C-alpha cells in the first residue's frame, strides 16, 4: 500500500515536472505576445504586464486541461484579451492616467499625437475587428497566424482586416482634415 502510494505520488510529481517544463517552454515563446495583446487594450506597461502575468497564471492552472498543446498561443491570446478587457472596464484609475497622458502629449506634440490618434481609432473599432487588426499588427503575424490565434477561417480574417483598415483610414483621414473630431 505504501509502495503504491509512493509510486502514485512519484508519478504525479513526474507529471507535474513534465507539465512545468512544457509550460516553461510555452512561456518563453509567448510572453511578448501576451504582453502586446494586453498592451493593445490597456496601453499601460505595468497594467499590461499584470494582465499578461495573470493570464499565464490562469493558463498554468488549466494547462493540464488543454488537450492540443499546439493551440496554447491561441488559448493564451483569448485569455489575455478577455482579462485585459475586464481590467480596462474595471480600472477607474485609467481616467486619471489618460488625463496625465493628455498633459504629456500636449507638452510633446508630433508623433505621440499620431500614435494617440491611431489608438483612439483602434479603440473605436468593434471588438471583432479590433482583435484582428491588433493581432495582424503584431510583428511576424500573417493572416494564417491570425486565423489560427482567433480560431477563424482565413477568409473571415481577411475580410475583417479589410473592414478594419477601411474604418481606420476613414477615421484617421477625418481626424487629419478636421482636428476637432
Amino acid at each position, binding site marked *: 500500500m505504501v509502495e503504491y502510494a509512493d509510486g502514485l505520488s512519484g508519478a*504525479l510529481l513526474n507529471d*507535474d515536472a513534465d507539465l*512545468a517544463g512544457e*509550460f*516553461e517552454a510555452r*512561456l*518563453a515563446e509567448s*510572453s*511578448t505576445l501576451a*504582453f*502586446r495583446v494586453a*498592451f*493593445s487594450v490597456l496601453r499601460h*506597461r505595468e497594467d*499590461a*504586464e499584470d494582465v*499578461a*502575468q495573470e493570464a*499565464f*497564471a490562469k493558463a*498554468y*492552472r488549466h494547462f493540464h486541461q488543454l488537450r492540443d498543446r499546439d493551440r496554447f498561443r491561441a488559448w493564451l491570446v483569448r485569455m489575455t484579451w478577455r482579462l485585459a478587457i475586464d481590467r480596462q472596464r474595471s480600472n477607474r484609475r485609467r481616467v486619471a492616467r489618460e488625463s496625465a497622458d493628455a498633459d504629456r502629449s500636449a507638452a510633446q*506634440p508630433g508623433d505621440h*499625437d*499620431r*500614435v494617440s490618434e*491611431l*489608438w483612439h481609432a*483602434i479603440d473605436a473599432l468593434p471588438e471583432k475587428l479590433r482583435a484582428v*487588426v*491588433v493581432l*495582424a*499588427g*503584431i*510583428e511576424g503575424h500573417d493572416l494564417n497566424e491570425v486565423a489560427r490565434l482567433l480560431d477563424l477561417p482565413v477568409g473571415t480574417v481577411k475580410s475583417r482586416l479589410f473592414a478594419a*483598415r477601411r474604418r*481606420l*483610414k476613414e477615421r*484617421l*483621414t477625418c481626424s*487629419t*482634415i478636421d*482636428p476637432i473630431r
Partner: protein
Amino acid sequence: MQHDRPHPLTDAALHQEIEAALAVYPSAEFVARVRMRVASQRSVGWMIWRTTAFGWTAAAAGAVVAMLAVALLWPTDRRRAGVERDVPLLAIRLVASAQPVSVPLVAHATTLEPTLDTPWPRARAASEPPVLIAADEAAALRKFLQGVRERRVDAALLASLHEDDVADVASPRPEAIVVAPLSNVLPLVVEPLPAVAALQGAVQ
C-alpha cells in the same frame, strides 16, 4: 492643427503604423515574475491537491465507518425480539407478587409474544408499549397457573408464604410491642454540693 502627410494613407502605411505602435516589449523582470508566480502556484496547487485528496480519503473512510456502524447498530425486528426475550421484567413482577393472574393477561402476552417468523408491525410496535415477558418465562407462568388450576400447586400455601415474608419485613402491630418495666432502673442520687465559702478558701 493639421498634419501634413507626404503620401495618402495606404494599407501598407497603416499596417506599418500599427506595427510600430505595437512594437513594445515587456520589462526584463516580466518573465521572471511570471515564473515566480507559476512556481508559487505550483506549490500551493500541490498542497491543495494533497489536502483535498487527504480530505476526500478521510471523508470516504468516515462515511464507510458510519454506514457500517448504522448497519450494525440498527435495531432490526429480529434483534429487537431477541432483546425483549432477555428482559423478563413483567414476568418477574407477576411471579413475585403471587397475585392470581388472569388468563386473558397471559393470553394477551402470548398473543403479543414476538416470534422470529412474524416480526412486529412497525406502527403497532411504535404505538404500544413492548411486552417484556420472555417466551420461557411466559411458559413457566403458564405452567404455574395450570398447576394452580389443576390443584397440583397450593396457591394458599404460596399466599401464606408471601404473608410471612411480608410480616417479616413489615413493622409490628402496636399492641404487640412489649414495654419493659421501669422498676429495674435505679433511682438517681444527687449529692449536695460542698459549701461555697470553703471552696473559695481552698482556692485562695
